[in-house]
């Protein structure tokens, strides 16, 4: 086992579950492409959360059973979905009126980098031969009331994604409220990153080792003491 790689920590489903638990009953939520898509499956059954996809549907349901895919019923990741009772279709200008106009409660996005000021970089490495592709991310971070990030704590090679400053081109400045990683749940406080919870078996020191900026301790007292 490679000593220079970060611990495994939570699974992607664990991360999605933690994010889902923080979404209030009755919320309108947009899920980004990738790990964020897992959140829908983890909403507690006692709550009703309505999912929006920017390509023109609110009331997104689970994926259809195999063989029942409709190429004209897809989500922003271009994967087949279903529409729940109470759903509505609309065109792109109306869809982004919802987003930009502040009507959505939560946007769950993936990230390449997050800075301690809440800056988000999730669309381009800025490398000269990269094909830049932004999609709706800049609109989501500019318009949705609460923006949270669901991402591995580091890159595959162990580079931290939580940094003092993003080195990749930004998606938005000071927009991220909370980050759910495989190692920790991290809040963006006025003083920077603050750990709200750690994956089982991990110490704050261990998580700090894989974090590219100071990480304060915002865990409840009893959890801290029990460490």
């Amino acid at each position, binding site marked *: 086992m490679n000593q220079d790689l970060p611990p495994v920590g939570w699974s992607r489903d664990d991360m999605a579950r933690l994010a889902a638990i923080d979404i209030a009953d*009755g919320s*309108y939520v947009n899920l980004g492409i990738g790990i964020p898509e897992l959140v829908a499956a983890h909403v507690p059954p006692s709550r*009703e959360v*309505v999912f*929006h996809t920017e390509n023109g*549907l*609110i*009331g997104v349901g689970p994926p259809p059973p195999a063989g029942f895919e409709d190429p004209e019923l897809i989500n922003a990741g271009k994967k087949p979905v279903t*529409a*729940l*009772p*109470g*759903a*509505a*279709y*609309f065109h792109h*200008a109306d869809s*982004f*009126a*919802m*987003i*930009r*106009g*502040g*009507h*959505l409660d939560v946007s769950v996005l993936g990230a390449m980098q997050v800075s301690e000021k809440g800056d988000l970089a999730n669309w381009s490495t800025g490398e000269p031969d990269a094909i830049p592709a932004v999609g709706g991310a800049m609109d989501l971070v*500019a*318009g949705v009331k609460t923006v949270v990030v669901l991402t591995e704590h580091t890159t595959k090679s162990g580079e931290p994604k939580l940094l003092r400053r993003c080195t990749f081109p930004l998606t938005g400045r000071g927009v991220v409220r909370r980050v759910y990683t495989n190692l920790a749940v991290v809040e963006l406080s006025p003083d920077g990153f603050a750990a709200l919870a750690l994956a089982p078996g991990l110490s704050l020191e261990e998580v700090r080792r894989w974090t590219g900026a100071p990480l304060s301790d915002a865990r409840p007292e009893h959890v801290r003491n029990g460490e």
Partner: protein
Amino acid sequence: MIDKRVESCAAAVADISHGATVMIGGFGEAGSPLELIHALVDRGARDLTIVSNNTGSGRVGLAALIAPGRVAKMICSYPRSANSTVFPELYRSGRIALELVPQGTLAERIRAGGAGIPAFYTPSAVGTILADGKESRVFDGREHILEHAIRADFALVRADRADRYGNLTYSKTARNFGPIMCTAADCSIVQVRSISEPGEMDAECVITPGIFVQRVVHVANPQQESRLVREGVAYP
């Protein structure tokens, strides 16, 4: 479970307070939420700013709200219409302020308010007194003026059907300002003739998705404003 239904018009408007900005749907009587407006009259809130295309007629609906001096300011395009006497009286005696806005600019400012667009340029009203004092700028060789978004604390709207999510359909030309006003208010309150079960409304035909609606009130048999005016009814 999401359920935006509220048991009465009175309950739906119970937190509209003095000084609130309220959008009121309708083009003349078509789409005017008469029962919600009357509940607001009963509620007694003062110093209101009302955004609505007209100013009501007779002594019911919007006119009944204006008559007792509850409205400090009207933002509208057409405050003068048949049987409209309440607003003109107050306006002439200086007891109500008026911001007159071309109808298309009014609609676009409301739409902008709901869409997170703080300001936009338009060719409407250029060269007229309604452009006086407004910033202007030439695009493509043509003069345009800068107009700002309008938002409100509340919107009172009449639609035709709703479900518990607040999804709405409207009836014919009673649609008018309803859909855009629902998007531009912090709290949109809608009276509807009938309530559907979720899924009964065709998702392709929902005009206002429920995300834009906060409260729904079932008013099965709304009164017809023109009839009340003809009969000389005054509210309350």
